[in-house]
């Protein structure tokens, strides 16, 4: 079964963000450009993913599962990096980097679910 290349890109973006944020927290650093931008990269990916999904729909491909649920997941996922970056501007402690690392983990899980809804099948 072929895996959506965009899903792999997203998984990689999330992984890099999580590693950077946990790494910075382990080094007892507060949120810096690198960790905040990595969370922003997750947001950027989600926007691209949403755009690509619209293009795929326009190109005649359909969502196998409930379209509502797919877009609901995407809209919810879009809120998470924004909230975490806002948090990182308020809280300059190293725990803020752990909060930023939650972005990559959460968005990865949600991306996984979105792929399942799109394909109407279980990826596992």
């Amino acid at each position, binding site marked *: 079964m072929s895996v959506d290349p965009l899903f792999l890109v997203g998984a990689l973006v999330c992984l890099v963000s999580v590693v950077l944020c946990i790494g910075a927290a382990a080094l007892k650093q507060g949120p810096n450009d690198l960790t905040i931008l990595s969370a922003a990269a997750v947001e950027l990916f989600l926007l691209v993913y949403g755009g690509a999904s619209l293009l795929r729909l326009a190109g005649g491909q359909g969502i196998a599962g409930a379209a509502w*649920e797919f877009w609901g997941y995407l809209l*919810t996922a879009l809120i*998470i990096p924004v909230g975490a970056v806002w*948090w990182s501007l308020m809280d300059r*402690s190293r*725990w803020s980097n752990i*909060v930023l690392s*939650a972005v990559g983990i*959460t968005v990865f899980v949600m991306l996984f679910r979105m792929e399942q809804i799109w394909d109407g099948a279980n990826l596992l």
Partner: protein
Amino acid sequence: MNRSNNSHDAGSQDAAPQAGRNAGPGRLLVAVYAIFALAATARAAFQILTKFEHAPLAYLLSAFAAVVYIVATVGLARSGAGAYRVSVAAVGVEMVGVLAVGLFGLIDPAALPEDTVWSGFGSGYGYVPLVLPMIGLWWLYRHREDARR
């Protein structure tokens, strides 16, 4: 952390809470609760808006869980004795809820046909809904002096 070396901390009635419940690792707890509040709210809203007739009880339970997560998030994030009591109540309800719904699913699987956050002891969410209230209650217990502030 606040060490309670004497039970009557004279000057602390109005002092800003220092390194307390909602600082350091406590902030991470608030963040995880916030994510669950968001996820549970979105899920409950989706279920109730699109297919409420299908399994009203399960979806109302989803909505209830979402409210509990929101209250817990706010309670954990805020300082003061009132917020502390709110957190204990919300996290306690969450603990009871996840255990009750999990057990209920084992005893009578047909009663709640659709999944909620708490079904199967939170297995659909990597058991985080089961572990989270345990960590939450432990964290609140460690900061129990907040209740007297």
